[in-house]
């Protein structure tokens, strides 16, 4: 547990020190992320060796105090967060287009890292409210780094995020009023299917879905994520929307009474399928590159929602493995995609998808990164996205009665293939290539490729990963 705390504290302390001493170099954040990654990795090792660990903060046991829990899933998420931050930080330190110079990008990214770590570790409903607010504020603060043009989407995001928090908080208040405790496990033991509990869960679900941009509450996401600076878009899509999802998953799989989960599961799963198709369609239609990538986030979250829904409907906890594999694979792929897209957009001087004509020649590595990451989103083997889809498909295909759901997954796959290859095919257009405004920066392109390779590497690592994730969900 100490290691997990260290993984939280390192970026937090670094951020505060950078603010206090006005340090401007990204080296500090890179070092802190590296240290945090190391600690998280060791924490994971510790969990695997010794099992789930809990910490009563301040020595006060629940229900009085706040409890941290380090399960193998939490540890994996800590590793994932630190790794993503490390990759993005290296990119931001290097790239010319990162808006990291002369802004508070570095401390903000450290705070983002710490907020996420706090969220993964906490198991207290109210504490989650505070971490959610932290996430929302830090996300908005980072979006507006890209200048006044981002103000409008940022404001919209902030207002919706605040409203969502208050929905969530009202739900927390109801649960506290009903059961008198805030700890997840205590609630799980006490919860009953009465009217107050239903309403509380409904309120919290609406708030969390809004924050996680789950269909149909996703409308704020494309503008917000696409108007942020490139490095920030990557962090937002890869990490920030996953925080509320984590809480949603815990709430429904632990606290919600069984007879509620079945009907809610159906709704979640249907929303997931619609998200896959609607998000894919929007990504296929949009003329702007980063908006395309942002819509793809909406679509990909559909897989997570589908997994969540079916897991609730059938009470099959092994589907949580699929859920979290989707989250990990999507996160890495999205980092790569946003970095590649941002780098190409800045170098080629246009936000439009059409400007990528001939990009395989002018910026081969970035385009390759985009394609490779896209391959994981589609679910081509042997990528992380493939493994996730595979795990999701297994129970769907086993019984003929569940085959319609598999059809949904198939359609989602085709939709994602369509929008990824819309871009890829265009980039081979040599007849009418867009000349770059600057010399393309090979190192930044390679950095964009790194997470894409990592997500394909995830597949080779899938067996232990599946094991850890299923231990956490059992």
């Amino acid at each position, binding site marked *: 547990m100490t290691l997990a705390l260290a993984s939280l504290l390192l970026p937090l302390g670094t951020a505060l020190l950078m603010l206090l001493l006005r340090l401007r170099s990204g080296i500090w954040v890179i070092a802190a992320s590296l240290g945090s990654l190391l600690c998280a990795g060791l924490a994971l090792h510790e969990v695997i060796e010794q099992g789930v660990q809990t910490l009563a903060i301040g020595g006060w046991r629940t229900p009085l105090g706040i409890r941290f829990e380090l399960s193998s899933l939490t540890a994996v998420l800590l590793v994932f967060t630190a790794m993503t931050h490390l990759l993005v930080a290296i990119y931001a330190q290097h790239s010319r287009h990162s808006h990291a110079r002369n802004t508070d990008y570095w401390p903000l990214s450290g705070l983002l890292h710490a907020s996420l770590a706090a969220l993964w570790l906490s198991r207290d409903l109210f504490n989650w409210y*505070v971490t959610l607010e932290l996430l929302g504020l830090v996300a908005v603060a980072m979006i507006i780094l890209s200048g*006044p043009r981002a103000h409008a989407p940022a404001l919209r995001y902030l207002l919706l995020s605040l409203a969502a928090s208050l929905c969530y908080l*009202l739900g927390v208040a109801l649960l506290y009023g009903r059961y008198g405790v805030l700890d997840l496990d205590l609630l799980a033991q006490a919860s009953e299917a009465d009217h107050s509990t239903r309403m509380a869960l409904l309120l919290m679900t609406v708030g969390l879905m809004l924050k996680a941009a789950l269909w149909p509450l996703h409308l704020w996401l494309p503008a917000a994520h696409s108007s942020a600076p490139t490095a920030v878009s990557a962090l937002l899509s890869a990490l920030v929307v996953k925080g509320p999802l984590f809480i949603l998953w815990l709430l429904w799989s632990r606290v919600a009474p069984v007879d509620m989960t079945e009907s809610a599961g159906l709704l979640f799963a249907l929303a997931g399928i619609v998200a896959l198709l609607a998000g894919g369609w929007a990504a296929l239609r949009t003329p702007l590159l980063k908006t395309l990538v942002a819509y793809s986030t909406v679509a990909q979250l559909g897989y997570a929602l589908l997994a969540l829904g079916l897991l609730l409907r059938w009470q099959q906890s092994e589907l949580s493995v699929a859920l979290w594999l989707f989250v990990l694979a999507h996160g890495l792929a999205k980092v790569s995609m946003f970095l590649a897209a941002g780098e190409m957009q800045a170098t080629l001087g246009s936000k439009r998808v059409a400007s990528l004509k001939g990009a395989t020649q002018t910026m081969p590595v970035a385009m390759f990164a985009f394609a490779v990451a896209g391959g994981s989103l589609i679910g081509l083997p042997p990528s992380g996205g493939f493994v996730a889809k595979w795990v999701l498909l297994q129970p769907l295909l086993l019984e003929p009665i569940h085959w319609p759901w598999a059809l949904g997954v198939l359609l989602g796959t085709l939709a994602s293939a369509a929008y990824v290859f819309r871009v890829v095919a265009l980039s081979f257009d040599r007849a009418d290539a867009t000349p770059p405004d600057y010399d393309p920066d090979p190192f930044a392109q390679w950095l964009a490729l790194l997470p894409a390779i990592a997500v394909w590497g995830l597949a080779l690592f899938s067996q232990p990963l599946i094991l850890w994730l299923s231990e956490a969900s059992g």
Partner: protein
Amino acid sequence: MSGASLYLGLGVLLWLLGLHGLLRLRHPLRRIMAINLMGSGTFMVMVALASRSGHNDPVLQALVVTGLVVAVSATAFALRLAVAHQAHRSRQRPTGEHEE
């Protein structure tokens, strides 16, 4: 009907009023006020819950204090953001530039 129930209902009503305002109104300042109404409603539910059955629940009150700080920080940020956005727009408009 006890005082606590009254304020529970009032809190819910305020929350709903705020939500409605957020969804229906367009002006950023109004929307920010609407969100604050939602917040006040939520806090009122919490405080009413804290005061039920006579003795006060310090935990809930503490939660409301925390919530209040969070709410005021976020409100202040949102207001400043709205002002900056407005300033940017009014700077742009006279020169005839178009936003995308």
